[in-house]
């Protein structure tokens, strides 16, 4: 038994040392596998970054109330009377002054210019109620100040400022005939809110002629369990019949559609490319076996078994795959990790997000590389193991 492993070790060492003789062929396999991994990981990092930005935006103890069937904030309408009924609903937390902690909100789409492409893009302008900031975690004004209620002042999210032109503090932006002053920049813990513009609800309502309606109501619940109370309250009152969801559930739904699409595009592409890389790896390994035919036959003639030849060839293939996988992952990390992108989200407005690699994704990429190496090495390894000695000795 021990001698078998010694044989395996010896043949593997010979194989690996001889890679240099086939450096161009081996290098092309390594690069092919690295490219496959880069494409896969770039897509997965994009889906992951998008998912994190949106799914990280919601809280369990915040309820979001929308018109039944509307699915996204932009489509929803909630009347002033309905807002009052929700205020009196069960399960809603109250502040020190006894007032319910709710924020009726109006969500409008306005135009902005994207810095990188200088094209028009849909940006969200959110009119928030008095409790608007208190209902979101980690809201901090990082520059300037909060808008004053009743004035046409806005604060903008950090991500929006970075990606779109003309929102620096002190500048004036005009949406239609009205002009707004940018007075502050806020951070929101990397959530989707950082892609928004916020203003006072009442001002937005009057300047956009939407006096009697809002789109959504956000409410702080006494606890995550209170959601069901509020839900059945809405279901049982014919004047309401609204969709009540936890904010976390709402954002999870929003995130899943787009990131699903990205993943559904990424995996098939990566697999198709991986098949190409397998063909390349097979080529390399068959050539490797052919080039070493005499050597393998000689080893067999002096008493080495077929198994060491098999392992040696497979090890060479796997080593090339691992190098390719690691190179690909490293390149993806250097090129794509942290790259900012934006796309249309579920609300028909731009969501700014960063590409984000995770250890788990890197593991997926390296695993794909190993599969390519395994398949690419298996058949040539079998050939090496079965090579008839006499034929091998006369190979040249």
């Amino acid at each position, binding site marked *: 038994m021990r001698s078998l492993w010694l044989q395996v070790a010896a043949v593997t060492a010979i194989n690996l040392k001889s890679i240099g003789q086939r450096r161009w062929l081996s290098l092309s396999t390594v690069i092919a596998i690295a490219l496959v991994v*880069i494409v896969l990981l770039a897509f997965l990092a994009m889906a992951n970054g998008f998912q994190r930005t949106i799914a990280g935006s919601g809280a369990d103890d915040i309820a979001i109330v929308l018109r039944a069937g*509307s699915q996204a904030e*932009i*489509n929803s309408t909630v009347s002033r009377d309905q807002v009052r009924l929700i205020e009196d609903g069960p399960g809603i937390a109250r502040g020190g002054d006894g007032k319910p902690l709710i924020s009726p909100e109006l969500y409008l789409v*306005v135009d902005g210019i994207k810095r990188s*492409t200088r*094209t028009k893009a849909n940006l969200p302008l959110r009119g928030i109620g008095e409790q608007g900031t208190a209902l979101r975690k980690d809201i901090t004004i990082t520059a300037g100040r909060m808008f004053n209620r009743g004035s046409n002042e806005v604060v903008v999210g950090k991500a929006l400022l970075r990606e779109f032109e003309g929102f620096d503090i002190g500048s004036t932006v005009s949406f*239609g005939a009205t002009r707004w002053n940018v007075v502050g920049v806020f951070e929101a813990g990397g959530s989707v809110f950082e892609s928004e513009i916020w203003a006072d609800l009442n001002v937005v309502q009057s300047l*956009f002629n939407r006096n009697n309606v809002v789109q959504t109501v956000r409410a702080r619940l006494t606890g995550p369990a209170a959601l069901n109370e509020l839900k059945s309250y809405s279901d049982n009152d014919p004047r309401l019949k609204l969709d009540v969801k936890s904010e976390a559930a709402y954002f999870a739904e929003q995130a899943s559609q787009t990131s699903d699409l990205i993943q559904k595009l990424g995996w098939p592409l990566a697999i198709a490319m991986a098949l190409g890389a397998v063909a390349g790896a097979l080529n390399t390994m068959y050539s490797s076996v052919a080039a070493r035919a005499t050597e393998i036959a000689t080893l067999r003639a002096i008493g080495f078994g077929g198994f060491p030849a098999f392992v040696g060839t497979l090890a060479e293939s796997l080593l090339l795959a691992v190098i390719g996988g690691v190179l690909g992952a490293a390149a993806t990390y250097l090129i794509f990790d942290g790259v900012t992108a934006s796309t*249309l989200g579920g609300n028909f407005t731009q969501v700014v997000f960063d590409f984000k690699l995770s250890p788990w994704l890197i593991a997926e990429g390296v695993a794909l590389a190993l599969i390519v190496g395994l398949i690419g090495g298996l058949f040539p390894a079998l050939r090496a193991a079965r090579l008839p000695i006499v034929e091998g000795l006369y190979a040249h």
Partner: protein
Amino acid sequence: MNDFDLVRKNLFRRKLRASLMIVSILIAFMIFGVLAGFYRAFTAGEDRAAADRMITVNKINFTQPMPIAYFNRVKTVEGVRQVTFANWFGGYYQDPKNFIMALAIEPNTYFDVYRSEFEVAPDQLQAFTRDRGSAVVGEKLARKWGWKIGDRIPLNSNIFSQKSGGHTWDLTIAGIVKGKAEHVDTNFMLFQYPYFDETRSFGKDTIGWMILQTTSPENNDRVAKAIDAMFANSTAETSTDTEKAFGKAFAAQFGNIALIVLLVVGAAFVTILMIVGNTMALSIRERTREIGVLKTLGFSGPRILTMVLGESVLLALLGGIPGLVIAALIAVALRNSLANVAPAFAVSPTIALQGLALMIALGLITGIIPALNAMRLKIATALGRG
């Protein structure tokens, strides 16, 4: 035996190696075909936009409404041949997941402005304009749900509600809209704006956007300026642009699709180029002695160059053409499920031609170094080697 036979026999001397290379090339061109088809579908709106058509939207953003009174005022602008308007409805059928691209339109002018794209039988169009509660549906959508003329369809809105409180409009199908060309998407439902406006609970007397046709594309600029100036400093300022520019700006919002396509196709190509190039070099090296023999027999250097290049180009074509065919089949299979995102998803003749050009380029690039080496080979060296 002519040169082509030699090329063919050389290529398939090692069947397994040749098949593997063909498979990698096939996959590269499959990826190319699918991505290029997808990209074309994505930007199709831009390409087929009529040069004399313009879109007027609210300056704040195209999702903001503007007063219906604008319609009559725009009609009078010099250089405007015809105007129509539409309003987004946010439609779905039975379940919010069954999204339907539904618009409330101005029934008398809409099909005039879009006459180069859509066709409705005259009697059906007449029935539609006469009956306020009727709708016309695109051929594709009608086929999807098995709808026929005379069917009553409950159309839900995820935005609007009726004055009576419901969210459903019952519409009778008066006609089927056919596309006049293959690439025209007919996955929509159109119904009368007057009926919609009268029954909705909010937003009365506002419209989503106007589509106008100018008397000539040369007037586009002047017309756009005249319209936007007319509504400057009003509560709803407008922004007028060509249909093409509008479509382009909209597509850009999804992110840089073109760059992604380029990256992936590029990566796939570099991969294949390396694999094929290396293998070609290897197989020519193996044949050094033979090339020496051919030269001894009187084959000229250029003739050998052509033969080696012919071999690599043949290889590229053998892999590439089936790859494009598979891409075309994938496009057909996916067309329905991608109807909302990329309605005109197909591997077009242009893409096929581009693909062919790429195949030849791939063949020439991978073959050129081994071919030059073979051409320059000295007989003595060749026969002395190996």
